């Protein structure tokens, strides 16, 4: 699943993926404790997990199927609104909100995917943007329901009741972090599982060489549609978590800018690697915080870093690390 560096070079090669995986999960589980040591805080960790999940979901398409969607924030945004609207209008239930977000993002994504799975290249990219614009327009215009430009407010994430035990994610950042981590784990687990299945391998085939995939008998369009659907459900989940994180939903979560940022995160961290986008999201968020503290023109620097990565480090940060460890 991924490479490693430093101390792990003491570990025999066959064991490396498992060790790396263990390290990653240990780091994630222990995050609320080591983050403050480096100037972070728990809510930031939750945010990075959520955005990282969105980037990883997008990368399921870009990095593993080889299909570029520039409008995937649409399904993220639908997840945000789905969750928000349930909490605001239907019931004060976090699980219901979560499911609503996942379903809304996923079902709409699936429908769009069915329409465009036969297109490629620029056509595909543009249609994904076009649909996103449409959803943005709806969120913006239908302000009686969505709150329009100002967004949907007036809802709160609700504590989770497990029988007698109550996980107060409403008040406790720590509890919410572990809730997010749990959902993250499930969604990421599903993605990883799919990628390692025979079906997942057909996606790699399509990425590597679509013509050859077709000439092996793989129904390429259908598989692209399935990949689009899976990534939409996953990004919908990220969206729902985002609504719960901020207790707020607004059209910017649907906007092309966010789609672009997710693409940047995926590439920055490493498109070909499973965990790359999470790293990319972390780096992006930290950089954004840091650079925008220094200058208001942080977009220029992000753009410049991105351009450099594309030109010289197309495998992203994890690609650089892997090459180091192989040497």
């Amino acid at each position: 699943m991924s490479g490693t560096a430093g101390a792990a070079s003491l570990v025999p090669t066959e064991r490396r993926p498992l060790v790396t995986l263990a390290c990653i999960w240990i780091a994630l589980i222990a995050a609320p404790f080591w983050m403050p040591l480096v100037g972070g805080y728990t809510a930031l960790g939750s945010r990075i997990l959520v955005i990282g999940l969105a980037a990883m979901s997008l990368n399921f398409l870009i990095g593993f199927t080889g299909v570029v969607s520039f409008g995937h924030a649409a399904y993220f945004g639908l997840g945000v609104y789905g969750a928000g609207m349930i909490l605001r209008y239907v019931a004060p239930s976090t699980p219901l909100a979560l499911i609503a977000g996942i379903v809304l993002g996923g079902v709409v994504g699936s429908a769009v995917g069915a329409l465009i799975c036969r297109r490629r290249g620029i056509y595909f990219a543009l249609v994904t943007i076009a649909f996103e614009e449409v959803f943005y327009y709806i969120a913006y215009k239908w302000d009686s329901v969505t709150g329009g430009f100002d967004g949907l407010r007036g809802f709160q994430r609700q504590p989770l009741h497990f029988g007698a035990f109550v996980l107060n994610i409403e008040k406790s950042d720590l509890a919410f972090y572990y809730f997010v981590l749990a959902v993250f784990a499930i969604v990421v687990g599903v993605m990883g599982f799919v990628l390692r299945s025979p079906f997942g391998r057909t996606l790699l085939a399509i990425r590597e060489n679509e013509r050859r995939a077709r000439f092996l008998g793989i129904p390429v369009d259908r598989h692209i549609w399935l990949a689009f659907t899976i990534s939409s459900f996953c990004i919908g989940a990220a969206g729902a978590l985002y609504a719960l994180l901020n207790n707020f939903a607004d059209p910017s979560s649907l906007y092309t800018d966010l789609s672009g940022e997710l693409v940047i995160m995926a590439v920055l961290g490493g498109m070909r690697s499973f965990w790359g986008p999470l790293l990319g999201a972390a780096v992006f968020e930290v950089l954004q915080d840091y650079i925008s503290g220094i200058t208001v023109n942080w977009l220029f620097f992000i753009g410049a870093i991105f351009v450099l990565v594309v030109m010289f480090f197309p495998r992203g940060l994890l690609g650089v690390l892997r090459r180091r460890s192989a040497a």
Partner: protein
Amino acid sequence: MSMLEVRNASKHFGSLIAVREVSLSVAKGELRAIIGPNGAGKTTFFNLITGFFPPTAGEILFDGRNVTQLTAAERVKRGMARTFQITEVFPELSVRENVRIAAEVAAGYALRPWLGATAIRDIAATVEETVGLTGLAGKSHRLVGELAHGDQRAAEIAMALALRPRLLLLDEPTAGMGEQETFEIAGLIRKLHRDKSYTIILVEHDMRVVFHLADRISVLDQGALLADGTPEEIAANPAVQAAYLGKAA
């Protein structure tokens, strides 16, 4: 019953007639070579057979069934496997992974989320067998994109074999290869034909390979079928000689 029968197939690109009413019939277990000067329409003809695009006119029958309207992927499912002039493989995956994907798709596992132990074993066996057959056993863990040209071609053939095809179509398998590699690929094709009884259609430019391997040869020129016969008949055919000499002039 022939394995492949093409009836009056034509392909027009606008006003350009690339393939002109070509008919041929390939028997089971036969190795047929398709030759002809440059621009004769050989690859276009191949593309018609394999479903790369539909014919402007004519029919294609595969093992008695009319496949003219089927897509490429559908024809592959029926048992046609092909290699390309410019090797089409999965460059950033290993040889094993390349072949494994082919085997899994052929076994009908393309949509499976997971495989049971028996299935895993069967797939692994297929991979072992085809990798061994094509002489890539020692390099099977390497990325295909990093292999030498000849090995990449062998890997592509391995993928085609893993599909358990009934008809193997090889488009210029020795293109761009040196003496040694040509010898090895030709040997592999011969093994597949003689020992494994594959029905093979070959587009080739290298006449030594053609005359060494083919049971029958079809000659295309300017999109039309010029001659069709045994290697001896073709070698003695003055029209064929003229076609080649004419082009060389």
